[in-house]
Every structure is written in C-alpha cells, then in structure tokens.
C-alpha cells in the first residue's frame, strides 16, 4: 500500500514535468536520435516549441530525443559536427522565437543532418499567440517530412468526449491532446464524433432529446443542425468522402440497419437488409467500399460491401467478437477491436495479406482511428482505472497516453490533414 502511494506520488511529480508519456515496448527498433535544442527566446514565449516538437517526433515512434538541456543553439548556429556525433545525434534542430511589436511571434528553426554534416533547410512562420501550439506542430510536420520523406500529421486535431461530474463535453484538441477547447457540453451522453472530410464539421450522436439523434456541428461557429432524427435510434455517423452525405445506423424500419442520409435533403436511403444488426460503417480509403459490423453470421464480425450497398464479404474470421473497423487512409491497414478471452484488444490487419495481430496490452480498447498519414492509431482504453486515450504506432511498439481534461476521456476522432 505504502509503496503504491510512493509510486503514485512519483508519477504525479513526473506528470508535472512531462505532459505526455511515451511507452516503448518491444526490442530492436530503429529510432533516429535527434537533438531538439530549447529555442532561443523560449523563456518569454507562452509555448515552448522545442518541447512540443520533440514530443511529437517521439510519439511517432521514428525518433528518439537526446537530452538537450543547456544546449545553446539557434537557426544561425554553426554546429560542431564531431561533438554531436560523439553524443550519437543523427539530426539536430535549433531555432528561435521572437515576439514582434504587433504581439505576434516569429518562429525560425534550422534542421541539420549530423551524419552527413548537412544543412537541411530553414523553417519560418509568424503567428499569433493563440496559434503557437499549432505552429509548433506544423514545424514538427516539416521536420518529419524532411527526415522521413512522409508528411507528418501533428498539425491536426483530435476530437474526444469527457464525462466528469455528470456532464459530457465534446472537446477539440491538438493531436497531442493538449490545448483542448470545448465544442459542446451536455447533461446527456455524446458519442461517435466524426470529422467531415474538410475538417470543419463534426457529426456526432447526442442524447439530449432523450434518444440518440445525429447532429452536424460546425466547429468554428458552434452552429449545429439535426441531420438524422428518425423514429427509433440514429447513430454511428460516417462521412462520405464528398462531405455531402453520411452513412449511419437507423432503427426506423426496425432493427439496426445502414442508411445513406443526404445532408441537403435529409432523406435516408437504406443500404443493408439483414435480419440482425448492421452498424459502425466506415468508408474504405478510396471511398468505393464500406466496412461495417454485422451479426448476420451469429456473432459480430466485420464485413465489406460496395459503398452504394450490395453483396457483403466477411473480413474478420478469428474470434467471436470483432467490431469498430477503421481503415487507414493509405488503404494498407484495418484497425479494429477484437474480444479475446473476455478482453477487448486493439488489432491491426494487413489488408493485402489478411494477417492480423493484437497491438495493445490493455483490455478495454475501443474506437480506433488512424492519423491522416496512416502512421499512428488513436484509441480509447482504460488505464489505471480511468478511461484514457492512447496513440500507438501501427506495429504497436510505441504508445503514448494523450494529455487531456480531467475525468474519463473517450470516443477519439482524428481530424483529416489540413487541405
């Protein structure tokens, strides 16, 4: 008991220093060691770009931050290659942040390839103080792109729901869970948020009228509209790639079946006709197919059918409970949750080979979703007795618990990349 309290206090102390925690599991991974030096002028800035960039890079699973305490480096520095090589750094990021006369901030950074002794270029941006965190995430995206050749997905947003003190709140936060802003607050549950393809709206299910009803909510203005309030339950909204319709689960004809709801007319056209449950629709990356969950075979399994409806083929075969399909934007993977021995575990299937594996150590995983660059999966789980959000690399080796509001955190939805 005493030992537990000590451990708990130590964790509290640690959480003051680091607002996120990255857990590395597995062995033999290759991570690029990078030094992200504190930015010149950071002390006078409301946000610390270096810490945000380093946390982003580490969460991606491809980088390992090397301690840069006390290092003085900015975009004008001339690095001493041999000393950085001695410290096993492969890359180096230095920069500065300056407050301008109009109150905005000038962010500058330079990236160096230590191995080749090469200048990889300069990043510059001028932003208002409210945009400093997003600007730091954009800088992390730039570094990620320079060093891996793949676009980063840090300058994106994650929507999630908290339940605290009997209130449900839908939040919109940075991709690291920080900087959350409340979009909707209700005394009744809110579930299944889903971003519109252009990232400006959220569809979700709210129980505020004593039944599940689907709303579409413009994030910037707070303007919201009921889009499916048919007799019975209305749930599981999934945006069509053109943003003009949703596929959702309606019980208006009895049973839970999939319908396409046109946003302009509000009309619903039925897509499935099964005797049981059809729910949790998710569009394939090319938009031509729908993954969904059905118990038509006696137990919940993931199926795939043409986006307009039609013959469905079964996708999952292992186990008797496979739900919450989430295809990756690059079309390579399908994340989902499988019940194994009473535990609900995040799985990833390679859609080419059909091979699948569990990638979490937790037992109450829910609602996976991919980052727009297909490199990370966000999901809800229960950790240390509380509902929490985690990110994981596709291979499950690098996991991070996202920062967030107090209370139970659930129902994550990763936004698309900014157009």
């Amino acid at each position: 008991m005493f030992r537990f309290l000590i451990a708990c206090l130590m964790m509290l102390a640690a959480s003051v220093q680091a607002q996120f925690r990255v857990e590395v599991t597995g062995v033999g991974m290759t991570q690029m060691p990078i030094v992200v030096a504190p930015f010149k002028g950071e002390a006078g800035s409301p946000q610390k770009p270096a810490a945000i960039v380093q946390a982003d890079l580490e969460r991606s699973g491809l980088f390992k931050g090397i301690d840069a305490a006390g290092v003085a480096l900015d975009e004008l520095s001339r690095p001493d290659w041999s000393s950085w090589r001695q410290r096993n750094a492969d890359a180096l990021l230095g920069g500065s942040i300056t407050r301008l006369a109009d109150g905005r901030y000038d962010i500058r950074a330079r990236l160096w390839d230590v191995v080749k002794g090469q200048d990889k270029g300069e990043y510059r941006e001028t932003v208002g103080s409210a945009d400093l965190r997003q600007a730091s995430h954009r800088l992390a995206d730039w570094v990620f792109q320079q060093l891996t050749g793949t676009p980063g997905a840090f300058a994106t947003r994650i929507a999630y729901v908290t339940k605290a003190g009997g209130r449900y709140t839908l939040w919109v936060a940075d991709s690291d869970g920080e900087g959350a802003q409340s979009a909707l607050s209700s005394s009744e549950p809110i579930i299944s948020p889903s971003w519109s393809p252009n990232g400006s709206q959220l569809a979700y299910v709210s129980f505020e009228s004593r039944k599940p009803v689907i709303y579409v909510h413009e994030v910037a203005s707070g303007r919201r509209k009921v889009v499916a309030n048919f007799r019975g339950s209305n749930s599981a909204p999934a945006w069509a790639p053109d943003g003009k319709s949703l596929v959702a689960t309606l019980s208006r004809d009895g049973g839970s079946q999939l319908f396409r709801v046109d946003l302009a007319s509000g009309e619903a056209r039925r897509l499935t006709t099964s005797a049981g449950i059809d729910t949790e629709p998710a569009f394939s990356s090319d938009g031509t197919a729908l993954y969904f969950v059905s118990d038509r075979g006696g137990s919940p399994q993931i199926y795939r059918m043409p986006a307009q409806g039609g013959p469905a083929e079964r996708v999952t075969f292992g186990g008797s409970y496979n739900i919450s399909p989430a295809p990756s934007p690059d079309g390579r993977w399908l994340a989902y949750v499988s019940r194994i021995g009473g535990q609900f575990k995040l799985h990833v299937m390679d859609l080419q080979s059909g091979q699948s594996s569990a990638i979490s150590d937790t037992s109450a995983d829910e609602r996976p979703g991919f980052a727009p660059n297909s490199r990370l999966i966000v999901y809800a789980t229960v950790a240390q007795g509380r509902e929490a959000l985690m990110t994981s690399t596709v291979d499950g080796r690098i996991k991070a618990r996202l920062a967030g509001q107090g209370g139970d955190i659930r129902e994550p939805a990763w936004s698309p990349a900014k157009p």
Partner: protein
Amino acid sequence: MRKTLVLTTLLAALVAGCSSGVKLNDVPVEDKSNAASSGVNQGTGVASVVTEKAASGIGPVGVSHVVFFDYDSFVIKAEARPVIENHARFLQANKQRKAMLEGHTDERGGREYNLALGQKRAEAVQRALVLLGVPESQLESVSYGKEKPAAQGADEASYAKNRRVEFKY
C-alpha cells in the same frame, strides 16, 4: 467495512490524480483577438455550445418501469411479463400517452455495438406490448447502449442491473 470504503475512496482519488497527465485547472481559453489578427490559423477557433435535457412525463403509478435481461439475450423473462402487461393496460387506457422504450446494456464491448444490442432489447419489449394490443403509434424503441448504467460496478451483479429496458413517458 467503513474503513475499506474510506481506503477505496482515497485510493480512487489518488489514482484519479495520478492518471491525469495534465493540470486539471488548465482551462482552455480562446484568444479571439490574436486568432483574428494572425490570419494563418483559420480553423483553430472552437465555439462552445451547451445543451439541456428534455423533460419527461409520468407513467402508471405503483408499477415497475424497468425489465431485466440475461447476458447477450433479448428474451423477455417470465418475471417481466406482469410489468409489461401493466404498461400495456396503462397505454390502452390512455390512448393519448406515448411510451419510450429505452434499451440498455452492460459496460462490456463497444459503444455503438452496445447501442444496437440495447435497441434489440427495446424492440423485443415493443413486440410484446403490440401483441398485448398496444398500437405501435404509442410506442418508440430507442437505445442508450452502455451510456446510462443503472449500477456502476464492474461485477456481474451490476451488469445484471444494467441489462434492461426502461419505460419512459
């Protein structure tokens, strides 16, 4: 017993403090003046909306408003019959009244799949009421899935209380 309870509560509070990775008083503030002037951060703003719950009416007096189900089952149990018959009589005597049948599940599994499971339970009760002569126009079956548990525990006794259909008027 009481000691255990206090300890458990203390522990829960500590674990709660432990597991939140951020400052609890880190209330987000939208800096609108800056957001408007920067011009590069369109889409960062989030407007906040607050909703309130709709009110509900009163059903038959002195009658249970809930029936329970077995695990993974939609079969109406024998002990639920008299409850359903009472509500059927009330609805037949009060043709202008409408009942909402709310299906619920225990906490295990996904939210959306549980919503569909709760819907099955609500529709099973609706079918029973219709068989007793209640017009469908007086009934609506909806589901809360696992969102509104009646009991909070993670044990079979709590789960059994949560697998239910509630009558709401």
